[in-house]
């Protein structure tokens, strides 16, 4: 039974999270708590922070890599059923894998040439 197997994994994870929970609760029960004003400010290498929030504009490039990642991730998922059946239908699979890889490589080369992969 397939679902049975996932149930075992679920039980395993529940067991693990119970242990994590016990550790967190034990620490909560044992630890001292003496908050002071300095402790509760953001950590900034000895200086007082310039503003309370640190949500400011980051380098936009992070987002662009995430965008490329989504497309490539879908391609990896398409690859997996293909390579799985490679042994049973080698010729068709070989042509398709080559085609798919070449198309993918073309996209990669395009992004590369356009400089989207540069981290300046």
């Amino acid at each position, binding site marked *: 039974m397939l679902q049975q197997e996932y149930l075992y994994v679920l039980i*395993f994870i529940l*067991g693990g999270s119970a242990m994590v929970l016990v550790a967190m609760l034990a620490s909560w029960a044992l630890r*001292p708590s003496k908050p002071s004003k300095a402790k509760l400010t953001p950590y900034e290498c000895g200086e007082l922070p310039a503003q309370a929030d640190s949500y400011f504009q980051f380098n936009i490039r992070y987002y662009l890599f995430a965008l490329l990642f989504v497309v490539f991730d879908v391609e990896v998922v398409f690859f997996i059923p293909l390579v799985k059946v490679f042994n049973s239908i080698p010729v068709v699979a*070989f042509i398709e894998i080559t085609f798919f890889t070449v198309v993918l490589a073309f996209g990669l080369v395009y992004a590369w040439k356009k400089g989207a992969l540069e981290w300046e």
Partner: protein
Amino acid sequence: MEALMPFLPYIFILVLLVLYLSVVPIMIQVERKVSAWVQYRIGPNRVGPRGLLQPIADALKFLAKEDVIPNHVNKWLYIFAPTLMVFPAFFVFGVIPFGAIMINGQEILIQVGKTNIGILYVLAVSSLGVYAITFGSWASNNKYSLIGGLRSAAQMMSYELPMGLSILGMIMVVGSLRLEDIVRFQIENGWGILLQPVGALLFIVTAFAETNRLPFDLTEAEAELVGGYHTEYSSMKFAMFFLGEYCNMFTASAMITCLFLGGWHVPFIGSMGLDPAIVGYIQVVAMLMKLGFLMFFFVWVRWSLPRFRYDQLMNLGWKKLIPLALANVIITAIVMAM
């Protein structure tokens, strides 16, 4: 013995949980001792005989330290993030086969869940690891944390692609995604590192990047980011991030072993004429020894290689590893088709 059979999965769950949680203290000790040897110093030697009780002292210290929750954090996510850190590792660990032992003349796999899509499942759940770090860094509301978290998320994404592509060759050779099938294939046809050397190399490199270990630990980069995503964390929550790191190392080692180092296989043991029951147990020990070696390897590399610069890291991922992985797929296909 017969009456025990229905409870075997639960026994395995219990045994593997204990194994899993005992790995962390052992790893802390190994990390400190090996670091000391590499740097030509003594390392911890005060607590217990030869400093062996040091991990217990560390754990007690984590328990008893004050837990500072600063005013500016987003409280619920701040508390939730460190617990989330261990989950992907538990998910992966649930499908790793640790060996095949004979009970009543029946071969039984030491494995919690036998899924049909083994490796794909592992890839999927290990992609959840990004969440703990992004949540932790965002909830901390600290500039160092945020930069560390963003770096880490972008790094883990960039290396997930070559990781996914690097195992394609192995799937192509074996024709199955089940981890136990892959190990059995290696027992018959030789280890994966010989069948797929490029794939193995790519997988090991990306495993280092996915676990955020040196030389890929730009998320923590003490010199520039103080502590990265866990700058604002203290006490047990900080310990959880550490626990997560070691758990991830352990699962990464297990994956490397299953995919490329023959899993529980010991070379030439079949021709020694031993009792199959004993062979089973020897091979479980062999699996654990392989894992131990890989964990040691993680620490060894940590003190041997300097940290990358961020642009170098991204270049390596996108411009070298991904093309190499694609080439590996094509070349494997050509060799297989011939």
